[in-house]
């Protein structure tokens, strides 16, 4: 069964991408849409398929993979099932970086400035979290540090948007805090894909080190794992992947929490095997949610983060309840 997991997840992602491309407000049947996409129809339907739906599906998979993989990597390193980019403020800080790049005009002048600024925001948050609640910190410290960083990043983002000369900017705070894939284009894919790919490549090399960390830092170091290098690769990988994903889709939370939690029993709780599985699982989850927001309220722009929070927040509460004893232990 375990050997089938990755191929099964891959097939699921492919099926969801196909479904994503076939869902939309246009009153056209799935068969007709598919034909228009495949034959490269030059008419309006072909444009809708190629320029609106296809980039959205691809971006959904990339963003989901980035968030799922980053969640699994952070949980493996911090040895804490509550660590995930949205909860600990990495996504919020990346959103702050992106908003600053957009509102100061940097992003308009130099296109890669947008993902780079988001990456810088993410790096700052990851470093802060590692300093405040590093491997020796417990769950309570981690959650508190995450709350602090998220609150700070969210407030700063709202401030920057309110100071913008553009009258529409203030309303954007919802997009940045809840995330959305609506009307994304190939421009967004071209901006985000290289950084997500690079970040994912770095994170996938962490498997061996994360497995060794199961035994604790000393044992892992004695097993020949370079802990400093491991930490650097974690920070760089998470910042690149989450930064780029947030820059184009806003802060989508809970993916990195839900996906590793669901898949952990299926990989025997081994961190190394959880990494690629979480990438595929994250892609599947975001694609499914993106399809759902288009089916549930097709006329309104229901944000992706709303659905994620409806699924993820109860799970978060359940996890806290389960680790309550550990939390109370660190209080004393």
């Amino acid at each position, binding site marked *: 069964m375990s050997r089938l997991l990755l191929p099964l997840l891959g097939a699921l992602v492919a099926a969801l991408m196909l479904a994503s491309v076939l869902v*939309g*407000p*246009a009153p*056209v049947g799935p068969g007709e849409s598919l034909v228009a996409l495949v034959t490269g129809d030059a*008419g*309006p*339907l072909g*444009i*809708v398929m190629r*320029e*609106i*739906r296809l980039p959205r599906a691809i971006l959904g998979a990339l963003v989901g993979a980035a968030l799922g993989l980053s969640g699994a990597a952070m949980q493996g390193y911090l040895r804490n099932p509550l660590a995930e980019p949205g909860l600990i403020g990495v996504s919020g800080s990346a959103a702050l970086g992106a908003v600053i790049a*957009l*509102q100061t*005009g940097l*992003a*308009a002048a130099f296109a890669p400035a947008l993902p780079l600024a988001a990456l810088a925001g993410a790096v700052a948050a990851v470093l802060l979290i590692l300093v405040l609640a590093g491997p020796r910190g417990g769950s309570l410290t981690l959650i508190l540090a995450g709350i602090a960083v998220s609150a700070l990043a969210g407030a700063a983002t709202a401030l920057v948007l309110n100071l*913008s*000369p*553009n*009258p*529409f*900017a203030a*309303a*954007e705070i919802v*997009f940045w805090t809840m995330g959305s894939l609506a*009307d994304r*284009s*190939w*421009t967004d894919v071209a901006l985000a894909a290289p950084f997500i790919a690079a970040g994912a490549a770095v994170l996938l090399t962490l498997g061996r080190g994360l497995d060794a960390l199961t035994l604790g830092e000393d044992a892992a170091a004695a097993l020949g794992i370079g802990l400093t290098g491991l930490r650097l690769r974690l920070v760089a990988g998470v910042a690149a992947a989450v930064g780029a994903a947030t820059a184009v889709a806003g802060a989508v939370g809970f993916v990195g929490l839900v996906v590793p939690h669901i898949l952990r029993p299926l990989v025997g709780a081994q961190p190394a095997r959880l990494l690629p599985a979480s990438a595929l699982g994250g892609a599947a989850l975001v694609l499914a949610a993106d399809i759902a927001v288009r089916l549930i309220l097709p*006329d*309104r722009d229901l944000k992706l983060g709303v659905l994620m929070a409806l699924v993820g927040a109860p799970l978060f509460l359940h996890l806290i309840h389960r680790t309550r004893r550990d939390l109370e232990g660190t209080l004393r």
Partner: protein
Amino acid sequence: MSVWRVASSALAALCLGGAALADPPARVVSINLCTDQLAMLLAAPGQLVSVSHLARDERSSAMAAEAAAWPANGGRAEDVYLLAPDLVLAGSFTTPATVAMLRRLGIRVELFAPATRLADVGAQLRQMGAVLGREAEAEALAARFEAALMALGGDGGAPPRAALYAANGWSSGRHSLPGEVLAAAGFANVAAGLGLETGGFLALEALVLAAPELIVTGRPWPGASRAEALPRHPALARSTAQGVALTDSDWVCGLPHVLRAVEAMLEARHRLAPP
């Protein structure tokens, strides 16, 4: 046209609360962009004391240059009260708290609804004239406008299809001022075919599939916003729409300047027509 005269006079009588005022107001303050410009067109010298700061903004005001002649107010009850007006002109969507405060302070406030039809231009000119005690000037201006509008008139031939697409995907339908401008220039509005009579959110996909020949968007504000990125989505650039005209301050209020907007659209239509 005479029906409109009767209607606007009746409206003016209603606004005056039944009691006819002998003297026209001596100190008038306007706190709404559209009433600013109406008042600037019609007020007697020295009658208009202040207009809102929005009137000086070139992006939304058709009379931004002229507005420099009047002091600007911030539209708050405090600013206005200190100017000691005997009449305040506001829009029906002006913050209710501000209007209520001014009335509580004993100041007369006249509310003007936003223009939704080309016919509202004449009606509102006459309404403003009645309120300011400048009926004759208002009548002259309105008559000139209505004559010019008739003269413009669309030519025959199949109307090309156009769509209005503003920030956040807002598309104005037939029963709106921008929609009527489009119709006066001889375009068919795709929003009507998609069920948006006054206006509403139009999904990008639906817009692309409707394949209009012209897409009319607004000029972007400084700074950046995702709302304004939507009318500039690459899918629209690659679609079959031949032109993307930009609206400006002439489209915002129901003023005679709307004619300039109609003329611009007529020009766009002639550019679309096959050689």
